[in-house]
Every structure is written in C-alpha cells, then in structure tokens.
C-alpha cells in the first residue's frame, strides 16, 4: 500500500491550480483564429479561411492545452502539440481542396496515438487502454443508445428526416468528428479538465463543471442550427453524453470508451437533417 511506503513531505504545498495548463498555450492558436475570422470578414472566400485556418487552430489549441496539462509543467509537449496542429492544418486544407481530402483527418488521431504510445505522460489524460475492456462496450452502448434516441426523438417529435447522405459528405463529417471535433473535446474537457477537477472536488462537481464548459463550446459552434428545439436537444443530449463520458473515464481510466460513445453519437447526429 503506497501510503505506507512512499515518502511523504507534509511541508509541500497541497494547492494545485484549477486550470492544469498555462493559459498562454492558447495564445498562438487564438491569434490564428482571429486572423482567420478577420480574413473571412474582409473579403476572403466565405467560410474558407475559417475552415482551413480557424478549425485546426481551435482544435489544435484544445489538444495543445491537453498535452501541456499532461506534461505537468515539464518541457517536451510542444513538438507533439505542433505535430498535432500541423496534422489538423493538413487535414483541413486537404478537405477544402478535394472531397476525399477528408481522409487526412485520420492524421491527427494517428499523431496523438503515436504520442500516447511513446510517452507515459499521456496516461494522465486517459490516453491508455482501459482498465476494464467492458467499459469500451459500455461506451459503444451509450453512443448507440443516445444516438438512436436522438434520431428517434427528433424524427418522431419534430419530423426531422433521417437519411444517409452521399458517402463523401457523410464520411467528411464522421472523419472531422474523429480527427478534430470529438478528439479535441474528449481530450480537453474529459481528459484534462474533468480529470483535474474530479480529483479536486469529487465526481459530480467535476463532471458538471466539465460538462458545462463542453456545452458552451458546442452551443457556440457556428455549425449548430440556431433553432430552439435543436439547441434544447443539444443541451440535453450533449450533457448526457458528456456526463456519460466522464463516468466512463472515471471508471476505466481511459478516454477510449468516451471517444467511442461520442463518435457513435455524432455519427447518428450526422444522419439527421436539421438544416
């Protein structure tokens, strides 16, 4: 038992910062986001600069902050963060130039996986095999259930049509979720924020705080249709998805189950035609 054998220093301060990474990590990414938004406003191709520069900067910022938190103030995370950001940039650029360029969104998860395999620090944000592989089944079940429920409720209640689009646009959405949207959200909100906060405050306060921020991120997403029923459904389902993700990470010590749940849920969401 560690408490009997590990050295204990009562003089060390027990205070740990609420935000487990330095906020300046966001600065370069925020700057790129601003540049992309401004460029879009002043006459560039509509939405193009935002998609090519803004999206990778946003998701890259979240992933860089997660890596910085996992390294806990030591150096070495920067080149991995740069690699992931570069992979995101390549993916967004490829996606903008060619319909099958979306396949490049496989690069960021690959970069993250390589980093996780080579560095034990990534275990701190849950990039590790689950302690209990049944948790992965749980994640799949949660994703399928919430996704299926969303489709059923939305179609029965609001009459939104459910249909599979042509392969390329649907695949683009799925791969974007896999390579950017879900990956960055899980790593940042669950793997970094929840992982720190539940150790400080306990499960429920940590999960609710991380879920609150996660909801803000999605509600502020320009891709979300600004209708009341969609916003209300987003709050409801994303809150459940986030809480489930927190519980799965808490139980298994791995982000894989919550990644699976989110990916399946967003796969279902992409089948829903809300625009």
């Amino acid at each position: 038992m560690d408490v009997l054998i590990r050295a204990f220093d009562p003089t060390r301060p027990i205070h740990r910062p609420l935000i487990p990474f330095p906020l300046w990590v966001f600065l370069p990414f925020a700057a790129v986001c601003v540049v992309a938004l401004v460029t879009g406003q002043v006459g560039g191709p509509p939405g193009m600069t935002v998609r090519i520069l803004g999206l990778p900067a946003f998701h890259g910022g979240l992933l860089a902050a997660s890596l910085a938190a996992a390294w806990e103030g030591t150096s070495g995370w920067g080149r991995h963060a740069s690699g992931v950001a570069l992979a995101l940039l390549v993916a967004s650029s490829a996606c903008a130039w060619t319909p099958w360029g979306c396949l490049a969104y496989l690069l960021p998860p690959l970069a993250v996986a390589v980093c996780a395999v080579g560095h034990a620090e990534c275990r701190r944000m849950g990039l590790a095999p689950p302690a209990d592989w049944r948790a992965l089944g749980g994640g799949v079940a949660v994703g399928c259930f919430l996704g299926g429920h969303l489709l059923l409720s939305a179609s029965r209640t609001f009459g939104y049509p459910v249909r599979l689009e042509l392969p390329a646009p649907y695949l683009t959405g799925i791969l974007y979720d896999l390579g950017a949207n879900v990956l960055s959200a899980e790593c940042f909100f669950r793997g970094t924020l929840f992982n720190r906060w539940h150790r400080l405050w306990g499960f429920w306060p940590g999960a609710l705080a991380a879920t609150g921020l996660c909801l803000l991120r999605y509600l502020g997403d320009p891709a979300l249709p600004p209708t009341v029923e969609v916003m209300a459904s987003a709050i409801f389902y994303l809150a459940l998805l986030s809480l489930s993700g927190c519980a799965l990470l808490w139980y298994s010590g791995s982000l894989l189950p919550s990644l699976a749940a989110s990916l399946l849920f967003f796969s279902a969401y992409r089948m829903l035609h809300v625009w």
Partner: protein
Amino acid sequence: MVNGATGILCAFAAVTTALAWSDAGPAAGLRHLYLLPTLWAALRFGGLGGGSGGLLAALLLAPFVLPAIERRGLTGETVEGLISLGLFPFVGSVTGLLARRARIQTARYRALLTLHRTLTGSAALPRLLEELAEQLRDALEAHAVAIVLVPLATGRPVVVVREPTAPASSAFVADSAAGWVMRSGQRLFLGDMASDPRVRSAEPAAGPPRRVLLLPLEAREGRLGVLAVERRGEFPRELRATARSLGLQLALGIENACLADRLRRFAEELEEKIQAATRRLRELDRAKSDFVSIVSHELRTPLTSIQGFSELLLSRPTSADASGRYLAAIHREAERLGRIVADLLDLSRIESGQGDVLRVGPLALAPLIDANVELFRSQSDSHAIDREMPDGLPAALADHDALDRVLKNLLSNAIKYSPAGGRVRVWARPCAEEPDRVELGVEDQGVGIPAQVRAQIFEKYCRVPHPETGHVRGLGLGLALVKSLVESQGGRIRVESEVGAGSRFIVSLQMARPPAEMHSA
C-alpha cells in the same frame, strides 16, 4: 455487478417493448413498470445507480410522451406523462440514496459487531489484525485497508495490509504518510495519491482518484498505531465519519485485546511462579524433614556416648586410667554436641538475618593460615596440607574470628571429601584481575562436585551424595555459613571443581590498603 446491470437493462428493454407493442400513449399504465428496474438499480447501486436508472426510464418513455406533446399540446394525459419523465429519476435517486445510507449504517453496525466478536475471540494479535482489516475493508467498501500497530512493549511495528493485489506487501517506511500520522497523531486525508504533491505516485494515470484516510489509533495507554483506508473513487463524508468511529472502536478493542493478552501472559507467568514456589516449598519441606532427622541423629550420637560413659562411671568402680579415657570421650562428645548446637544457632541467626557483629579490620592472613594448617596437620595423617603465600602479602579487610571459621570449614571439608587422602593446598595471593583484592584458596584432590549441583552447594541443608563420602556426617550448613560469613565481610566466594579431580574454593577479600597507597607509604 455486470449480472445485476444486465438484468436491469433487460427489464428496461422488456417494459419498452411492451409499451411499443401496445402502442402506448404518454399516460399508459404500463409506464409505471419502469419503476421496477429503476428501484432495482437504486437498491443495487445506490443513488447514482437509481438516478441513472430513472434517467434511462425517462429517456425510454420520452419517445412516447414528447411526440404527443408536440401533436396535442399540454393535455391532462401529456402532463401526466411529462410528470413521469421527471418522477423516475427523482424516485430512483432518492431511493438509491436512502438505500445506500441504510447499507452504510448496516455495514457499520455489522462491522462493529464483528469487531467486538473478533476482539473477544482467542486469536493471537497478528491473526486478529488480519481479520479486523478484512472486516473494515468490507464495511467501508474500501480498496485497501492497512493497520500499523506499534506495541509499546516491543516498539517494532506490526503491519497488516488487505488489498486485492496478493500477496499484499507489509512494508512500512517511517517517513511515509502513515509514519507522519503515527508521529503527529493527526488525521490525514489524501484527496488523490496519484496527484497529491506531498506524496506522488510514480505512475501517471487517469481514472478514479485514490483517496486515502489515515487515522491515528488512540487509546488510554497512548498512540497504538495507524489505520489507513484507501478507496478508489469517492470517499464520502459519512463514510469517513464511519471510518473514524470504527477506528475509535478498533483502537479500544486492540487495547483491550493487548491488555487481555498481557493479563493472560501474566496469569501464565504467575502460575509458573506458583508452581516453582510450590516445588521449592516441597523441597524445603523435605529438606527440613531430612534436617530434623539428621539433627536428631547427630544429637543422639554424642548424647548416647555421653550417657553410656557417664553410666559406666556411675554404675561400676573404674580405674583411674579408664575413668580418664571415659571422661575424655565424654568431653569429646560434649564438644561435638557443642559444635552442632553452635551451627544450629548460627543457622538460626542467618535465617533471622541477625548475624554476629563483625569487627572488620586489617588482618594479616599468614598467621591465620599457618595456625589452621598446623591444627589440621595435627588432626589428619593421611593428608599432606601445604601452604603457599608470597612474601609481603598485603593484609585483608576481614574479621579474624569469622575468617578463622571460614578457613576451618573449608579445610574440614577438604579433608572430609578427599577420603583417599592426598594433597590439600591453602594459598593466599593478591588478585590478578582486581588489584585491590586478596584471594584465599583451599584446594583438595577429593571427589569433586558435579556441575549440576555446583550452584546449590552454598544453599542451606545442601549435601552432595557420593558413594565414597557417604560416611561423612553433617547438617549441610557449613558452606551456607561460609558464604554468609564471607559476604558479611564484603567478600565473595566461588568454587571450581572437577569430578574425581578435586575442588578449589576461592575467597576474595578487600585489600586493607590498595597497592598504590602501600607504595606511597
């Protein structure tokens, strides 16, 4: 756990299938069946399980309620369904919370009962601690429990660890968190072993925090040790209170067990001592009986002689020569009788602690030794009695009469216990190991003293039986008197002996003037 969860999920699926099959509306009576798996989850998994079950029920019922609200608006039926959506999570979480609280209380009382039952058992302390650790682990739903006990008698910690990884290590480091609690006597709660800066785990990991509560085990006799409880996940306040209460009971119980253990050992020791004392008393009783028998015999022998010779003198006319011999015999036996009575009186004084008043002062050993050697030479023809003393032997601090009796006793024994004759050597010399002492020795080439009785020969009534010295009469008081006399002069006596080769009695006495003073003088 999975089996329970599977059953609950199957029950939810069955109710949903029944609702879908019957094309139920928002207020269908069948919806109440969701309460069954919800309550099942609550009772099985507590508040979180009940809340999740209720939420699942609400999610499953929502597709039957929400479209109806969208189509018909808020009617009585749809409102009823809407209320059900909120009711299931509420009922599930409240029931689960209450069930969990009841379970914790039950576990606490059960643990208390088990603690008392275990502590009143007859198991040895380490085994007892193992059982207690297991009971506490169950009662507190803990991942691991450790009890570190420092018995006041030994000061060596006894460590018992119960955790799923087997075999559990029972190592204990003094500068660990448990050691700190032991020293400071303060409670300590570590929110997460993996990330607490005061004690950092080597392995970075996500997952549930490893929360540890460390409690000092305080009792009336002081700090007994530390109780450490580690939980993976939450460590609610009420469970910590339960742990504290159990820790208190544990400390008192362990103290009682230690006291009972001590009492048991004390009773065993007492019983052994009583048995030894009883044996000793029996031996003394037997010795006294032997003593009375010997004394009677010893007294009767000279008395018979005195009586016989005196009757001869009185009853018939005797010649002057015969009368002289008879009177000499009467005188000899009277002296013998006097010695026996003197020994008995000495014994009486020793036993009552009232010895003679000794006049200890500087005493030259040579004249005393010479006088005794001459005396015993004249009494024994079969022994060659030698003396050996260096020139300038310093005087000893001793009482003349007492040392004279000591020397006579030792010489008498040397002659008596070497029946085949031989050499008896009396010597005196400064002690080699202790420069301020003088040694006086009497050696013989007699039967010797067996090693197993050597320690007892200075005790009263002790006689060492030997086939060759069976004829030697005595009360077994001589050496006891010698020892008493030597010690009362501040001296020491020891014996070296080899069976069949002889014995050497050495009396060590304080020198009258240390050598340095003598030189300076």
